[in-house]
């Protein structure tokens, strides 16, 4: 059974980025393979922020890096502005890579400790930017200023002289100097305190408005992802479970895994009732030998024999809401009669594998 379907893809002329049947596998010896990303499809329109959520190891970072061809995906295509990046030779790809930039989780260690901030931010310009140092510095200073760092004061300092939040601002400035069309943010606020996290999220929103940026925003915190994203894709063990406009997804999750994530999210509100009965939920299966059919079935309370046999395909729930599940929690467009509406079903007992 191929991927999880593409019913959720929009016409290619309306999107900046499109991933189709993206597959990334890592050989780990003995003929075994880690199925990190297995045939997922998604698209991002210009100026849009797509959030990617899911548990550790579900393939979020691998997906982000595959867009940059780091490493080249095992299968599928990545189309940016109608050019399939997977078909470019490595020289052309290096050139195109300036269109896409990446920001990482650990702001301090992602900056070279021995170089000055001026050099670090100018680095992407060395190869593809203007040749005159003064012209380079003009761009660097403008970007540092845009992220709230005093350019002259920072120019000759090194990363350890800055806090985690400031280092993340510097990483963002470095990502911006090439005026990329797309920025992939891999857990950019996960290592930061909540007050600094808010500063960086606000900064990204402002930069997006000013520079018309398109973002793929990877995070495991559901509230952070909802805050910044226009649409959110939920991943589980290398597969896509659900994709929807953010407010819609949180208001009516259709995939049992999405609902599990939401029920687990610790909302800072003492009025939220929590179900304390859930103390075990089985272990995450190995990505070397993922379950047949629906990969979530070993932890899904709704799993039945069909889920073991047949992989669910993406189906439309409504306008901009798609789910890959045989028994979605919200009625699906294409089989309204068969869909089970079970919003009150408790998610406590894990099904036997």
């Amino acid at each position, binding site marked *: 059974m191929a991927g999880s379907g593409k019913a959720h893809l929009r016409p290619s002329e309306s999107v900046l980025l499109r991933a189709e049947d993206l597959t990334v596998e890592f050989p780990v010896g003995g003929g075994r393979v880690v199925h990190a990303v297995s045939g997922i499809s998604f698209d991002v329109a210009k100026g849009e922020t797509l959030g990617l959520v899911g*548990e*550790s190891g579900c393939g979020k970072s691998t997906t982000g890096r595959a867009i940059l061809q780091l490493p080249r995906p095992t299968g599928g295509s990545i189309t940016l502005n109608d050019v399939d990046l997977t078909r470019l030779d490595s020289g052309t790809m290096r050139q195109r890579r300036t269109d896409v930039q990446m920001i990482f989780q650990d702001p301090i260690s992602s900056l070279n400790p021995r170089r000055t901030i001026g050099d670090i931010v100018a680095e992407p310009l060395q190869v593809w930017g203007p040749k005159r140092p003064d012209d380079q510095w003009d761009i660097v200073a403008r970007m540092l200023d845009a992220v709230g760092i005093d350019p002259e004061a920072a120019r000759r300092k090194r990363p350890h002289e800055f*806090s985690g*939040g400031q280092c993340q601002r510097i990483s963002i400035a470095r990502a911006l100097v090439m005026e990329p069309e797309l920025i992939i943010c891999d857990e950019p606020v996960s290592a930061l*305190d*909540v*007050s*600094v*996290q*808010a*500063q960086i*999220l*606000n900064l990204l*929103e402002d930069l997006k408005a000013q520079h018309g940026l398109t973002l793929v925003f990877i995070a*495991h*915190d*559901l*509230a*952070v992802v*909802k*805050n*910044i*994203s*226009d649409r959110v894709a939920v991943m589980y063990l290398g597969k896509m479970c659900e994709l929807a406009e*953010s*407010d819609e997804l*949180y208001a009516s999750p259709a995939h049992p895994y999405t609902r*599990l*994530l*939401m*029920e*687990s*999210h*610790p*909302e*800072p*509100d*003492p*009025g*939220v009732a*929590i179900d*304390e*009965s*859930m*103390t*075990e*939920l*089985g*272990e*995450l299966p190995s990505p070397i030998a993922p379950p047949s059919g629906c990969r979530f079935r070993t932890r899904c309370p709704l799993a039945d024999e069909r889920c073991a046999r047949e992989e669910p395909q993406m189906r439309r729930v409504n306008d901009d809401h798609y789910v890959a599940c045989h028994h979605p929690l919200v009625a699906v467009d294409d089989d309204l009669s068969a869909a089970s509406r079970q919003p009150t079903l408790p998610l406590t007992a894990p099904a036997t594998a």
Partner: protein
Amino acid sequence: MTVTSDAGVAGGGSRAGDLLVVDDLRTHFRVPTGDVKAVDGVSFALPRGTTLGIVGESGSGKTVLSRSIMGLNTAGNAVTTGSVLYDGTELIGRSSKEMKALWGAEMAMIFQDPMTSLNPVVKVGRQLTEHVRFHFGTNRSDARAAAIDMLQSVRIPEAAERMDNYPHHMSGGMRQRVCIAIALACSPKLLFADEPTTALDVTVQHQILNLLSQQQRERAMTMILVTHDLGVVATRAAEIAVMYAGKIVEKAPTPVLFAEMRHPYTQSLLWSIPKTSQPKHTRLSAIAGRPPDLINPPPGCKFAPRCPYAQQRCRDEEPQLVDGPGARHQFACHFPVGTPENREAFDRNLASGLPQTLTVAGCLAAREDIVEIGDGA
């Protein structure tokens, strides 16, 4: 060094039912450039069988506070003063040998990184049986049975088989369960959990917190749950203490803290956290600046450089943690949120163009869920 303050428990509300009474506890670290005042005058009383949540940002002193109470601050440059009454006996000034005698049956700790308490090269089963034999002097086969029981009590499936695993064979959540099993083995009366789920996925975090709540209730344990995440304690702790720069700035029963917070830092913290109940792109109210240098903190209120309500008095005079009008609600602020004085302070700062006040005002204008500066979340 032991200095017992004679000032009594400031705002601690000590009662006979308290298992722990902490008074003016300070832990300073001597470093070449001065003293790092990591914990600087903390007082609270903890009733038996309840859970206290301690929240604060990184570096606010949460870990040093719990380690100081447990006598785990063995760093040569650490100086702890003040008083910790545990079940009526003073702990400050005890030797580490005397403190060790309390670890296990009286108090135990769960750390953020399970590998802090697990030996990576010893099978999990042996680590458990050694623990059981050390504390109870049981024979080998009884210890094994007890260890399997322990693993089952923390809901580890196929417990007998898991005994032969090394820690690296287990997931992070599984390892944390093993640590909980070890911590609970001697039925401690007081359990410290320092960011026990920070390194785990939300689904696993949810299960581990459920497990801890269940065990806490079943054993009528007293618990201190330390976290940087207000969401973690919102539904798990009876009371919450908010720490900032080595001090408790506000402490209240959990619902009161969220609905009627009085300290501007508590309010700023809540306003800066995104919630799933908010619409996408809700403007977050970030807290300006950074926490103070703990070697040379500013005089007066430590939050003043970042506080949207700060007045001259705040910069001159340090506010003390005092009882508010509500039961068990204490805060340390000259212009508490929700009072007319606070409103006036805000308006004055707005008029004079204090940057952090302007930022907050801008954010409030952009948000529909906060109507008034006296509001909570």
